[in-house]
């Protein structure tokens, strides 16, 4: 019991790092996803291809390989120097971005064509229609899938411990080694992840109820 009490403050520090990385990465990932989804649906073929190649490349390779490529691979180039936190954030963002792009694309395509026609018939241009009519409806519809991906990305951050980022998992490893009580330390680490993810999905269903039911 004592070991846990001693380990707990370190685990909380790790949790802060996890949440910090998750938060920035998910926002970046969302922006990437939105841009890529719009490229995917743009009227120019070449843009569609670029977007599709990106999405396929990310979906077709393991997260850990993407992480190693960005941290070790890119850093081996003379003109690039990324610290591990930046590399971690970038990897999670790029990874989530590809999945978000597919979610957003599907969301956009699920909106009835009549919505676009009505907006265009009023004189709104394509951008105004996307911004005021299509995206707000698409986002409401994609919220559940979106939450799912955010949870997956949060769990993916635990893999960042392998490049030495002092996140919750990494702190857990250190404490497990220091206290010789791996059973209890990892049990607590697991519980902390569980609670955070549970809170996240509660928040999501609250937002969903607030916006979707209408």
């Amino acid at each position, binding site marked *: 019991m004592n070991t846990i009490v001693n380990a707990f403050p370190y685990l909380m520090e790790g949790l802060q790092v996890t949440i910090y990385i998750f938060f920035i990465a998910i926002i970046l990932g969302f922006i990437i996803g939105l841009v890529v989804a719009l490229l995917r649906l743009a009227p120019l073929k070449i843009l569609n291809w670029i977007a599709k190649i990106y999405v396929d490349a990310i979906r077709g390779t393991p997260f850990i390989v993407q992480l190693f490529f960005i941290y070790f691979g890119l850093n081996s180039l003379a003109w690039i120097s990324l610290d591990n936190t930046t590399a971690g954030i970038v990897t999670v963002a790029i990874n989530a971005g590809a999945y978000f792009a597919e979610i957003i694309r599907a969301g956009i395509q699920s909106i*009835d064509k*009549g919505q676009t026609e*009505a907006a265009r*018939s*009023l004189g709104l*241009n394509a951008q105004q229609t996307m911004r005021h009519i299509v995206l707000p*409806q698409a986002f409401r519809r994609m919220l559940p899938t979106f939450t799912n991906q955010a949870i997956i990305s949060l769990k993916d951050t635990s893999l960042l411990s392998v490049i030495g980022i002092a996140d919750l998992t990494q702190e857990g490893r250190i404490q497990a080694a220091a206290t010789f009580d791996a059973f209890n330390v990892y049990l607590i680490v697991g519980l902390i992840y569980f609670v955070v993810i549970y809170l996240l999905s509660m928040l999501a269903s609250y937002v969903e109820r607030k916006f979707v039911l209408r």
Partner: protein
Amino acid sequence: MSMIRVENLKKSFGNIEVIKDMSTVVEEKEVICVIGPSGSGKSTFLRCLNRLEEISGGHVYIEGVDITDPKNNINTIRQNVGMVFQQFNLFPHMSVMENITLAPMKLKKGDKKAIEKKAYDLLGKVGLQEKAKAYPGELSGGQKQRVAIARALAMDPKIMLFDEPTSALDPEMVGDVLDVMKQLAREGMTMVVVTHEMGFAAEMGDRVLFIDGGYIVEENVPKELFGNPQHERTKAFLSKVL
């Protein structure tokens, strides 16, 4: 100058030629009703008038401006051409008031108060002032369609296009929507109405176009077209619907 001039309009979807060759003219304050069997191309014809369908051949002029010419800004032209759809296409995430004010807010330089006042007046015109704060999901079909008409009118269009506006309504709702359209016609709005409501066409139409097989088969004042159709196809169609 004619409000709408259609010259040798053609429209294909892939290999299927839906509009083969149509020409007509709509003058200011005219009410034109378009009738014909389903699949005849009448909705496509209407949708070519504001270029919701890309036009494959020929020309459409709105107030003398060729909308098929890519140099002309279609968004500006569309501000003068309101459209009402069979499925209403109200924006479900916005209140009735927001549905009506969105386009004027974004496209017209006027203050919010004045635009909302006008939207409120338009709601009065279609008899739905008490629904200003409601969402489309809370309205009946007939109410939705009347809001859709108010939404189109908010841009002060010179022309209104109606694409089977009462076809998706329960029968008891049809009258309310037709009444709004009749009032609009009496006020001098230039209207093109694709409809199955032969009663409306006969009563309100200055001219009726009968479309079949990608052509305007016959075009006449309602009394003549309904009472004394010239073409076999018109006769066959009317014998089924009247």
